[in-house]
């Protein structure tokens, strides 16, 4: 298994090996753009619930 980091990927030594399946996984991280998506979706959720909780006709 190739554990070299890809271009733009953070260096990480915390690779976990699953012995019987041969699968490896990095502990990894959450990219900044996904944090932005989480934040935007959270704000939108609050807005939509407040505005559209009842039918205003």
């Amino acid at each position: 298994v190739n554990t070299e980091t890809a271009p733009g990927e953070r260096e990480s030594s915390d690779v976990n090996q699953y012995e019987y399946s041969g699968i490896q996984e990095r502990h990894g991280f959450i990219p900044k753009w996904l944090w932005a998506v989480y934040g935007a979706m959270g704000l939108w959720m609050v807005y939509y619930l407040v505005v559209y909780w009842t039918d205003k006709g």
Partner: protein
Amino acid sequence: VSSVDTARERSDIVDREVVLRFLLSAAFWLVFAPTIGVILSIKFNYFDFLGNIPWLTWGRLRPVHVMGVIFGAFTTAIIGLTYYMVPRLCGIPMYKEGWSRAILWLWNISLTAALLSLPLGQNLGIEAGEFPTWANIPVEIIFILITIQVLVTIIRRKEKKIYVTLWYLSAAYVWTVFNYAFGHFLLPFSMPGVNNAAMHGLYIHYVVGLWITPAGLAVIYYFLPLAAQRPLYSHKLSLVGFWSLAFFYPFVGTHHYIYSPIPYWTQTVAIVASMMLIIPVWTVTQNFYGTFVGHWKRFQESYTAKFLIVGALFYFLGCFQGSTEALRGMQKLTHFTDFVIAHSHLTVFGTFILWVTAGMYYVIPRLSGRELYSKNLAQWHYWLTVLGFSLMASVLTLQGLLQGTMLEMGADFVNSMVAMKPYWLIRTLAGVTMDIGAVLGMWNFYQTVMQGRKIEGPAGSVAPAAGRYPEPQWT
């Protein structure tokens, strides 16, 4: 299967015979159920096609297609892959392996009888929950038995950590034990009126979101790092993806009934939950593509990788379509149009059928100890599937938007149907293309087990990480 050396390696923890028999059963259902879909699509072009035979009418055959894809094609493959993935992730054989052999026969017999009963007019009347009660009893028992097998195997595991595949699989089985009972034993016999419709919305989306989705994700999380020959990109993203799915999906179902008499606030909650599914979908998509970035060579070399990655693309597109489709403005435009059919096919076929197919490309050569029978057949399978399905998804999406716009502009409903005729013809041609691809692919699997060139090394030895045994090519 009979040509396979079924004497298992002592060190092997996977029951090869059961897995291969399940996957070859799935290969049959993967051809059968889509073929019924093609026959149904022809009825759009020629309204009288097979219309004089009661058991081949639209109303009788559509449930065969829907139930055949969900429980025949997808679920049969998932059960087979469960019996492969769980022991390998736990480091021990499946709990009560003898049950698996009984389940193999009980499952296929029940499924065949249930699918035959639908054209004969037996139907519970719950969409995606249409099997008659006598067939639902063995199916429910099977789900309970497999759930026990999975959970006990996980509890007794030798592997210290529980990989993300096991989270999704155990959750999918537990959720489905309850949801299957809910949809088949409670819903058809209680809660009349609009409450039943609301609960049906939950049931049908639990089939999609709490069975097909987590079971499918379990498959790609298992096979993607192996196919890429790379570590999974991020355990943290796996956590976010799993828990956000588990949190938001239970509220999604009522979005089937926007603008209905169901309380407004419940519709709003369903819309919000549908949109919030962007979080798990984009998260796991990042995890999948992050695993592959910089190592696209494996995409050329491995049919497992090809089907997984293309399926992940359709997953991203189909789920975004589904989330936005729940918004009131989009519902107004697309409800009762083929846009909805585009969405269901993008997710169920474009994503999850492709992912289990990828799993079959990985497992069948390894467990049979044989090389893939024909690279050419695999190539045809891949391209006919991808091109046929891309055409089908595009044309259904386009015609849905077109039909919705016509109706919004006040067009007569019949005229909107007439305008769809050329698109329906293209849809049928696309379906035939996909079906030919499926026949070639499944024949390739069957021939691999029967006549594939033997791989040097112990049959069924699967040690890709250790690299002790030669790996089959193109998988």
